[in-house]
């Protein structure tokens, strides 16, 4: 059988396909096999890449700077941008290397400190209730599209100080950029252009009328002691969309998928809600959404393979978090797991800057959901669909629940 017209995968160690249905739906068994047979796999598909599967290897490779560069963080080799697609706009700090990386990161970190994130908690809680109000009386919902997918774009809109209605457009753009766009370049260019033009206008408005939002905060900041150029702010807003939306909704969706399919865990969190923060970490470990790309800048021999300049290396954080060498019973979801050095948010200098925000959203989303809808199950397991590649999570998640 061919996979959407592509040749079948006979050998995952030398010809893996991160867009193969098996890899998107249930990648863990594939990583388990590779860890035994070929812990750093290779493929020529999608522009070619290396796929490490061991926790120690992924940690070491993520910390291998400057040999591995972040200037191409996508998991596939994107076609060059055509004229008029704003090729000069990058997404600092995720897509830049030291020495420019440090100042760009320091510019945004204060907006995502634990204290700063707490300020968005009341909005997130009210939003979660409002979303559930819309379907609580129906006895059925799509937990992905009606709930999980709605939270991060609205929280991001709130943080950016733009109209909440804009969130639906953000979703279209982000999926265009990271989901459909990875295999359909014209969709990616269109999404990217729309995002950049939208934020260019927003930045100009905030220059005239500053508020207390994220964009105004960046404009008031400094980059290595210098004023922050508009194009830098636009790029960082682009980053906020691509890094803060489908990632977190995927995590919320995967968590709800797990709880819908595992009644014992769901019941335990309903009766012991104080366990939710611990469970969130375990669900992040077991269903880590994000894989990032790096590109080799100087030859390095690592783990028995020769990485050559231009090679793409995938930061397989999801696979690392399933490594039995690093986690006892790595294949099991243990919602009260105490020792959990998972790297769902990456490791090293590119650790997800928004991890506190993502964790707050997950904790609020799950606690409100379990409080309002303590009993729920999958309407039809076969109806669940997943997206994968750069970001993995459920895209259709029909559930049913008793109406009280």
């Amino acid at each position: 059988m061919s996979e959407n017209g592509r040749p079948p995968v006979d050998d995952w160690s030398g010809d893996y396909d991160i867009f193969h249905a098996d890899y998107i739906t249930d990648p863990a068994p594939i990583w388990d096999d590779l860890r035994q047979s070929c812990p750093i796999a290779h493929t020529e598909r999608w522009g070619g890449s290396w796929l490490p599967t061991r926790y120690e290897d992924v940690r070491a490779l993520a910390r291998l700077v400057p040999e591995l560069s972040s200037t191409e963080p996508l998991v596939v080799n994107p076609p060059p941008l055509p004229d008029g697609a704003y090729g000069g706009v990058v997404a600092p700090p995720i897509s830049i290397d030291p020495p420019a990386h440090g100042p760009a990161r320091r510019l945004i970190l204060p907006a995502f400190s634990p204290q700063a994130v707490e300020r968005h908690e009341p909005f997130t809680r009210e939003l979660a209730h409002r979303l559930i109000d819309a379907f609580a009386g129906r006895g059925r919902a799509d937990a992905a599209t009606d709930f999980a997918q709605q939270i991060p774009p609205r929280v991001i809109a709130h943080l950016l100080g733009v109209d909440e209605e804009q969130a639906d457009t953000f979703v279209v753009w982000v999926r265009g950029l990271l989901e459909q766009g990875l295999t359909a370049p014209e969709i990616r260019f269109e999404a990217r252009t729309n995002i950049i033009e939208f934020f260019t206008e927003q930045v100009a408005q905030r220059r005239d009328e500053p508020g207390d939002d994220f964009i105004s905060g960046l404009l008031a900041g400094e980059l290595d002691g210098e004023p922050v150029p508009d194009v830098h702010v636009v790029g960082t807003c682009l980053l906020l969309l691509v890094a803060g939306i489908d990632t977190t909704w995927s995590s919320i969706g995967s968590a709800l998928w797990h709880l819908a399919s595992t009644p014992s865990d769901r019941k335990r969190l309903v009766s012991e809600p104080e366990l939710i923060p611990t469970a969130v970490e375990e669900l992040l470990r077991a269903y880590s959404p994000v894989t990032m790309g790096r590109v080799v800048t100087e030859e390095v021999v690592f783990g028995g393979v020769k990485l050559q300049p231009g090679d793409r290396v995938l930061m397989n954080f999801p696979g690392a978090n399933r490594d039995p060498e690093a986690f006892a019973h790595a294949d099991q979801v243990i919602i009260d797991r105490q020792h959990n050095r998972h790297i769902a948010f990456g490791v090293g200098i590119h650790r997800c800057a928004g991890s506190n925000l993502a964790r707050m959203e997950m904790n609020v989303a799950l606690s409100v959901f379990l409080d309002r809808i303590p009993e729920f199950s999958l309407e039809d397991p076969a109806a669940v669909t997943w997206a994968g590649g750069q970001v993995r999570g459920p895209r259709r998640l029909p559930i049913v629940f008793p109406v009280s």
Partner: protein
Amino acid sequence: MKVRVDSERCQGHNRCYALAPELFEVDDYGMSSARDDGVVPAGLEDKARLAEANCPEFAIHIEEDPAS
């Protein structure tokens, strides 16, 4: 018991601060350091160990008291 954060390794994941705010504080950039010169008050030893075992950067080090 004493606890120490290796500032060269810390990347601001804030796991220690979330699990043991009595023992760790974070700056505006989310970077962690131990409170009170790292002295772990009696009764909080398990929290110190929990923080150590959840740091993705392996940045937290614990000095156990000499066996009494």
